[in-house]
Structures are given as structure tokens and as C-alpha cells.
């Protein structure tokens, strides 16, 4: 028997609203299956279950706010199912946290009521009576706690970014390196490849760049991982967090999971899918917690170079600037080439500049031979 709990989706998260169940009691679930959706400051996140089994009991109703660690459901694992079903399945009542026992950490309210309460500065706890759901009308007729007009609330996402970046700046001794990369060969190669393809199969430079970065990380793994317990930890999986700007403001850096194992076409598809789901607010919990390095590409905004702030506990962030026509010396000749500034901010506790330099050099090498990135 195992408990399916509200996961922590970032160090700053204290609670989230369970929005929807994708399963019902008695359903068979497999490892990695999405079984619920929760709403956080990062949008709606799909939550996966980490073991195979049967949904024994669902303990929390949709649209309930739960603190991290609250048991949401009980999963009966396969082994327990065999044989003595009757005795093993139904746990002693005291084993399962009941609705009543945890009322203080869950308030039922519709999303509209929740939003309005936040705007008006009303404490939902004060309206939730005897486990009854709070309705919008109740919120609207309630007296705001703060009588004078409140300062516009900072969004949850802004606060999450503020917390992580303050911690980064306080704890991580950053070092910065940059390299000019001649992108003409790579762009030429890509253009040629794209003329032979239909519009649906077209590849974008961003996919090629991410593919090059993951390949370079295979050779310089020290930058792919974490600084934890005063020691560097190299991650075997390469899950680059891709900085994706939301048009309404804000930024999310979801992980492109297992990018190290993808070829160029797979990278393009996965990236396309990740951007679409980020913008429509449909990410999975693993995607917002498993990043091993960050890649930020402010190229679309037209800046030449970006010196990033490392997202702890990661140890590096790669920045890609706008690709620009630039004077370039080749042998004795001066010519014009498409040039991109690639930068690296590294955690000096985990690596030295030599490692960072090796990475940028490898990245440059790969982009001069793009056919190897297919």
C-alpha cells in the first residue's frame, strides 16, 4: 500500500489545488502514468504516479487546495493484490488520513471563488464552514480583511523566480565565459536540409543548438548536474531546462527530458511539444523538477549575449544570443558571417573556468560540423 501525495513542485511551493483526477477507484495504473492535474503558480501541472498498482482510494475531491505532502490517494501495489486480498486491501481506518482529520489543510472552493478571494484579500479559511465548499457568492459578499485598497499582489510565478534568483545570487559564486561562434556553416546546412523537407518536417536553429549543447555536455558532463551537500553531483540524464517566455509575462524553464538520447528530429519534435504545452499550461511534474542545466536563448529578443543566473541546485546555465551578420576573419581575409555569442555561467564551487572553456570549445566544434548532429 502506498500513499500518493501532493508532490513538491519547486522549493517555493507550499500548496497547490488538485484540479482533476484522470483515474477512478479500482483503476489500474502504471509507473509514469499521469493520474491527476494540479494548479500551481506555474500553471496546471500533470502529476505522474511512480509505481504500478490499483487505485485503492481517492481521498481528495477535485478543486481542493492541499499542502505539499498531503495524501491524495492510496495506491495498492501489485504484490499486495495477490492472495489475501480481503485482509491486505482494506487498511485499518487509522492508516488512511480522513477528510475530517485534515480539514485544516484543505479548503474546497471553486477556482473563480479562489481568485476573487485573493483579489479581495479574503481568507478562505474564514469562509469554509464544516467542510462545506466556498462559493463565489460567499466570497463576494464577505468583508475584505484589509479595508484599504491592497497593493496589487505579485503573481506566484514572479515570487518563485524572485526566491530562486535571490538564493542563486547569494549562494553561487558565478564565473562567466563567452565565445563567438560562426553559425554560417550550420545555418547553410540546415537551410539545405529544409528545402528537401515539407513544412511540417522543417527544423529550426533552436533545435540544432540544443542538440549541439547536449552533445557537448556528453563530453563535458561536469556542467550537467547539481551542487548538493557541499559536493558536485554529475547527472547521468541530460534534462536541459529550456527558458520559455510566456506572452502574458513570466518565464518557465521546463526540462526537455532525456534530450541526451534524442537525435535532431526528435529534439525538434520534443521542443515543439514542450513549448506548446508550456504556453497552454500542461506540463508534467517531472518536467518542472528534473532540470540538470538551463539553456536560455534570448535571440528572439535581439540581444547579442546573455549572462545567465544559475538556477540552484544546478551548476551551469548556457546563454545563446542573437545570430548576427558580423565581420569575421578567415585566414587573411575579412568577410561577413552569421555569428552567435554563446555564454556560459558556471558555479565556481562545482567547476573551474577550464571546464567551462572546454564546453564552449566543444560546442563550437560541433556547430562547425552540423551533419554530425543529425
Amino acid at each position, binding site marked *: 500500500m502506498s500513499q500518493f501525495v501532493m508532490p513538491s513542485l519547486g522549493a517555493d511551493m507550499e500548496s497547490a489545488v488538485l484540479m482533476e483526477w484522470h483515474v477512478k477507484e479500482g483503476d489500474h495504473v502504471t509507473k509514469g502514468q499521469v493520474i491527476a492535474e494540479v494548479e500551481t503558480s506555474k500553471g496546471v501541472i500533470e502529476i505522474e504516479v511512480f509505481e504500478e498498482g490499483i487505485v485503492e482510494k481517492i481521498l481528495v475531491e477535485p478543486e481542493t487546495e492541499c499542502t505539499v505532502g498531503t495524501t491524495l490517494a492510496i495506491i495498492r501495489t501489485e504484490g499486495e493484490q495477490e492472495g489475501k486480498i480481503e485482509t491486505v486491501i482494506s487498511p485499518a481506518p487509522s492508516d488512511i488520513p480522513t477528510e475530517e482529520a485534515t480539514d485544516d489543510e484543505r479548503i474546497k472552493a471553486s477556482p473563480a471563488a479562489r481568485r476573487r478571494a485573493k483579489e479581495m484579500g479574503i481568507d478562505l479559511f474564514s469562509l469554509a464552514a464544516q467542510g462545506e465548499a466556498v462559493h463565489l457568492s460567499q466570497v463576494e459578499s464577505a468583508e475584505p480583511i484589509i479595508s484599504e485598497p491592497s497593493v496589487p499582489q505579485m503573481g506566484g510565478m514572479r515570487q518563485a523566480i524572485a526566491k530562486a534568483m535571490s538564493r542563486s545570487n547569494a549562494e553561487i559564486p558565478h564565473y562567466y565565459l563567452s565565445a563567438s561562434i560562426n553559425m554560417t556553416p550550420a545555418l547553410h546546412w540546415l537551410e539545405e536540409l529544409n528545402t528537401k523537407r515539407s513544412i511540417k518536417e522543417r527544423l529550426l536553429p*533552436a533545435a540544432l543548438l540544443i542538440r549541439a549543447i547536449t552533445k557537448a555536455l556528453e563530453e563535458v558532463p561536469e556542467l550537467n548536474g547539481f551542487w548538493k551537500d557541499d559536493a558536485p553531483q554529475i547527472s547521468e540524464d541530460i534534462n536541459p531546462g529550456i527558458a520559455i517566455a510566456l506572452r502574458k509575462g513570466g518565464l518557465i524553464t521546463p526540462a526537455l527530458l532525456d534530450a541526451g538520447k534524442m537525435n535532431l528530429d526528435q529534439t525538434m519534435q520534443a521542443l515543439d511539444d514542450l513549448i506548446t504545452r508550456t504556453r497552454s499550461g500542461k506540463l508534467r511534474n517531472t518536467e518542472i523538477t528534473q532540470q540538470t542545466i538551463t539553456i536560455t536563448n534570448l535571440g528572439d529578443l535581439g540581444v547579442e549575449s546573455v549572462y545567465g543566473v544559475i538556477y540552484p541546485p544546478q551548476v551551469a546555465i548556457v546563454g545563446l544570443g542573437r545570430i548576427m551578420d558580423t565581420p569575421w576573419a578567415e585566414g587573411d581575409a575579412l568577410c561577413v558571417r552569421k555569428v552567435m555569442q554563446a555564454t556560459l555561467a558556471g558555479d565556481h564551487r562545482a567547476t573551474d573556468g577550464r571546464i567551462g572553456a572546454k564546453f564552449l570549445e566543444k560546442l563550437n566544434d560541433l556547430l562547425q560540423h552540423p551533419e554530425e548532429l543529425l
Partner: protein
Amino acid sequence: MTKEQIKTAIIEQILEIAPDINEADIIPDKNIQRSLEIDSFDFLKILTALNEVLGVEVPEADYAKVDTLEHMMEYFMQRMES
């Protein structure tokens, strides 16, 4: 298809792919990507969707000819006539 119908089709696809944009923000002679903050991924998606609706495929070499709503309308108009 008339020029107006093409315009409607283009605007429809832009709003479909970037739902947080207001139709009023789409200014005919402004660069679509820059003025609406549409990145290369969304731009490609818009062109892919328009290919399905209008049957015209825009090669990468022609991207400069479809940078604004006005240019895009002209581009598709010409290609659909021929």
C-alpha cells in the same frame, strides 16, 4: 478566395496559435514576429497551419516576403491565383 478572406484566414491562424494576442494588436504593416512577440516556433506553426488551410507552402527563402500581415496577404493572393 478574396483578399479579405485570406486576411481572415491569416488572423484566425495567428489567434489560434497565440490565443493571448488581441486581434486589435495585429497591425497590417508591422512585423508579425516582432510586434506580437511570436517566436520562430510559433511562426513556423502559423505557416504550417496556413499551408493546410490555403494550400500554399512558404519556403524558408521567402520568409522576408511574409513578414507583415499585408505582405503575407499579397504573397498568398499571388500564389493562389497562379
